[in-house]
């Protein structure tokens, strides 16, 4: 008996077999390429952290340049207490290394800040100035956005910033990753209370030190950048207070 190609049974059988084969092939590809992709993501993270303090490097040199400028990696809890500290070369296998904290995953998990730990990078720029680099994560219009904000040793002046995104619209929201946007943050200051920093759509006063202009046509992404900076600073603020207090005593 010839098989009825248009029968419901055959159609179902074909679909099931197809899904199983395709699923296996994709799972295999994904798993076998994971280690390389992870390495690339880690290198990119180093490039971005260094970018926030104004050091340009490449993926290839990231691994060696990183410890030269990033003197100490801390993880802190939501009350500003230091939990862990690492120095020198990054050990990708060591889960206690603050570099390996996945802030994007933590953001997605919707856990309370009190259940999480937060990485902080203490760096020195080319002339030996002390800089704090804070990773920020938030939501743009289509998907996650993230970046690094570098603060000077007064923990108030922004030294530099670097942002990136997953799927924002090219030409609009995606421009948060361009230098013209991140350069505007340089020299701006945080407010003393929330909102620590804002991104403004139109009508920003030029003398306003606590905000920058958003991107035309990328308002939701721009507002997302402001929101993630404000939310993250409000957590790190406790650590900054403790550092300032201890240095005053």
């Amino acid at each position, binding site marked *: 008996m010839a098989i009825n*190609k*248009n029968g419901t049974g*055959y*159609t179902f059988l*074909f*679909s099931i077999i*197809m*899904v199983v084969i*395709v699923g296996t*092939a*994709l799972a295999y*590809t*994904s798993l076998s*390429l994971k280690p*390389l*992709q992870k390495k*690339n993501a880690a*290198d*990119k993270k180093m490039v971005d952290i260094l970018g926030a303090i104004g050091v340009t490097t490449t*993926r290839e040199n990231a691994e060696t340049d990183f410890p030269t400028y990033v003197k100490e990696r801390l993880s802190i809890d939501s009350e500003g207490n230091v939990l862990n500290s690492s120095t020198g070369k990054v050990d990708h296998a060591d889960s206690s290394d603050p570099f390996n904290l996945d802030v994007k995953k933590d953001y997605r998990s919707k856990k309370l800040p009190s259940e999480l730990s937060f990485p902080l990078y203490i760096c020195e720029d080319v002339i030996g100035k002390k800089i704090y680099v804070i990773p920020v994560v938030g939501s743009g219009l289509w998907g996650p956005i993230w970046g690094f904000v570098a603060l000077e040793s007064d923990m108030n002046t922004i030294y530099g910033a670097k942002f990136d995104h997953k*799927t924002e619209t*090219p*030409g609009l929201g*995606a421009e948060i990753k361009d230098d013209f946007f991140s350069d505007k943050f340089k020299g701006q200051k945080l407010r003393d209370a929330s909102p620590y920093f804002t991104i403004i759509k139109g009508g920003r006063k030029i003398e306003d030190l606590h905000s920058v202009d958003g991107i035309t046509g990328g308002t939701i992404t721009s507002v997302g950048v402001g929101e993630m900076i404000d939310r993250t600073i409000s957590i790190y603020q406790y650590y900054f207070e403790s550092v300032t207090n201890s240095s005053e005593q």
Partner: protein
Amino acid sequence: MSTENSAITPKRESLFSKKNRKLLKDPLSESNPITIQVLGICSALAITVQLQQAVIMSLSVLFVMIGANLLVSLLRNLIPDRIRIIVQLVIIASLVIIVDEVLKAYQPDISEKLSVFVGLIITNCIIMGRLEAFALANKPGPSVFDAIGNAMGYAWVLLVVSIVREIFGSGAISLPGMGQVKFLPQDWFVSSGGFYENNNLMILPPMALVVVGIIIWIQRSRNEALIED
């Protein structure tokens, strides 16, 4: 859709028979997917700022087209008619995901620049158009030729557009291992006291449309058969 779906000949034909050559050659000019059929324009406009991106994109499309055309052609007698579009989509999507994963692993910088456009190969009309119009009705051999021909037809337009845009938009072409290859003398540029400045409009999508338009214009003025009434 184009009309070169000729009947399958019973005789075994040579690899470079006239018919197979036609399958390879036609999409390069007379039935070019971009300039004549105006398909796949979205990616052609978006990723032609740099030659390097255009090359990787073209190779990705070539891989996906050959793979999809071959698989669909091999399965053409097994695919149930009612779900054939879904099957085609699943095959294309899987191949695109594989390309995306491989790029993320081996070409992370390019993968970042191409961003969503690799994923959007899935919706590139050229690919599904060829599956529906050719691979479903032809043997694997000719289907592969058809895929190569159409992917090359897509590729050359991308390459030409990206070369023009990169030279006039950025003043130099960046090649892997060679850095920036300059085409104009440095002292022509305003920055070193000359008269020439890069055209920033070139790196924006509208100029890609203009360049594609110029290619279409040249192509039609050379081949009168293509001119519509």
